């Protein structure tokens, strides 16, 4: 599936291959509706119902940030009668919000960078170099797919503490990288293996070293899979809660999921402020989703399937 990624422009994903062949559009349209107009009606009612279930909480959250507390109580669903810009304004002009976003960005970027570097190098070796123990070491890494970080969270905490990395970005980043390695190496290795074998042979004959081949041939050809693996690592790191919760203990280091929990604790009943804060923290995620939906959808589903 991941191999199909580069092909589709815009929204067209692996899908296209199968859907494309001739069958006239008209007949297919009738296909889904089962023909009868009632079926179409029920189908749309059902789809709208589910869409409402998904969207109403989100819209109410965004709009809630524009309401005064009093209005929120009487009118939680509708548009605000008086648009209260101060909730959003106060947060956007607070150092606190930007500190959280900055921390999250630093942690996620470091994680992505380290995952891409270490995983692609290892995947390259597993894909192209035959040595005694290749298979064994790959299986060893693949064990990482079997269990989540939470199973070993306490020893992990003690380890990070003994390294003196508690309350540092690295204390969160290194375990995150380690736990994403298994999936990343598998995805990358498969892609590397699917690249034409002749490339490597030709390069070797011409006296190119493995290191240069990796640097100048494999990596440039692997941009789509690197984007997919990077996106998966980024989303997990950006949204991650348990590892930072255990490893960090000063507000100044908190990424946004921790910060927003603290914020909620402080302003427990001031829902309009909290809703504005939630909106502003999910905004980067939603923007990224809209911009990179191709990689995110394909990455998260393909990544999961490969596991």
């Amino acid at each position: 599936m991941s191999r199909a990624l580069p092909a589709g422009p815009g929204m067209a994903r692996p899908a296209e291959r199968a859907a494309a062949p001739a069958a006239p559009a008209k007949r297919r349209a009738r296909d889904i509706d089962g023909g009868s107009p009632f079926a179409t009606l029920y189908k749309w009612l059902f789809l709208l119902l589910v869409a409402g279930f998904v969207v109403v909480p989100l819209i109410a959250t965004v709009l809630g940030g524009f309401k005064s507390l009093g209005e929120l109580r009487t009118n939680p669903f509708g548009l605000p009668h008086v648009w209260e810009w101060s909730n959003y304004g106060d947060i956007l002009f607070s150092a606190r919000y930007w500190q959280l976003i900055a921390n999250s960005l630093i942690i996620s970027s470091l994680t992505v960078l380290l995952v891409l570097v270490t995983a692609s190098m290892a995947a390259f070796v597993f894909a192209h170099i035959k040595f005694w123990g290749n298979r064994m070491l790959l299986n060893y890494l693949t064990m990482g797919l079997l269990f989540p970080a939470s199973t070993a969270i306490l020893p992990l905490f003690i380890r990070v503490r003994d390294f003196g990395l508690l309350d540092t970005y690295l204390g969160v980043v290194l375990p995150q990288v380690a736990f994403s390695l298994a999936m990343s190496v598998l995805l990358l290795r498969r892609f590397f293996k699917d690249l034409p074998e002749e490339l490597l042979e030709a390069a070797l004959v011409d006296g190119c070293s493995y290191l240069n081949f990796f640097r100048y041939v494999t990596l440039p050809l692997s941009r789509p899979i690197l984007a997919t693996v990077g996106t998966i690592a980024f989303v997990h790191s950006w949204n991650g809660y348990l590892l930072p919760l255990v490893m960090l203990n000063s507000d100044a280091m908190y990424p946004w999921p921790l910060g927003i929990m603290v914020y909620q604790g402080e302003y427990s009943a001031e829902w309009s402020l909290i809703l504005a804060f939630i909106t502003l923290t999910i905004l980067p995620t939603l923007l990224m989703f809209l911009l990179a939906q191709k990689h995110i959808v394909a990455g998260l589903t393909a990544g999961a399937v490969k596991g």
Partner: protein
Amino acid sequence: MVATALRSRRTDGQLPALLLFLPPALLLFTIFVVMPVGEAAWYSLFNWNGFGRPTNWIGLRNYFSVFETRAFGLALRNNGLIIVVSLLVQLPLALTLAIMLAEKFRGSVFLRMLFFMPYVLAEIATGLIFSFVYDGDYGLLAAIYRAFGAEAPHLLASADTSMAAVLVVVVWKYFGFHMMLFIAALQGMDRNLIEAARIDGATRVQQLRFVVIPLLYPTIRLSVFFAVVGSLQLFDLVMPLTRGGPADSSQTMVSFLYTHGVMRMRVGYGSAIGVILFVICVTVAFTYKRWFMRDE
């Protein structure tokens, strides 16, 4: 001659790559994944608060006390409930939507994206949004109750309803992901089979029942597997909603591990929970491999 030259060239340059490329990943993995898991097994045999070295060996007593803790039973039950709801509600919902949206028509791509969106949102944000939805004073649910002149319930604050409330959020957040799995499978499917069935006079329902669904079995298994694994990892979503409460009524395995092990710095006890969770995860993974992948 050429072949041997080629071969030696091939092996010549391999060593630097091997020595440079493999160690970073292997070291990170060993230090931060494999060793902690081993240490969890070791620490779980001690009564230890994390300071100094573990010296107070108590054998398997941590495990006994985990099994005796009421919250552990509740966590297991809740993880089971999540799996049941995933199978009975989420999976049929995702499958139905996938069958509707796998075809191209106006709005289908938009709806797919819309339904997938909750999966991308952070669990923490989702949990907070729904703690607003459920809020007895300001929440959306409260407004609906008030519109009918009824007293708004505090769902999250009652031990009887807290888990049900969490389950709704679980479905809200994850059905889109399962839908996408099915859509990907449906689009990879050989349309000729469906066409053949149609030409042979199969009705729409028969096509689904006898052709499409059987072809989807591997994906259905995969979806079940993810539901099980996801349930075993569920934590971030529960924290902003209930923190496992009230009275442990909405604990999951991981939130139980966090609230009873990590927060109280009971390293031995918490490690024992971790080991139990580890054993469950590995068993699930191998069972899946054994029973579900053999005919592929």
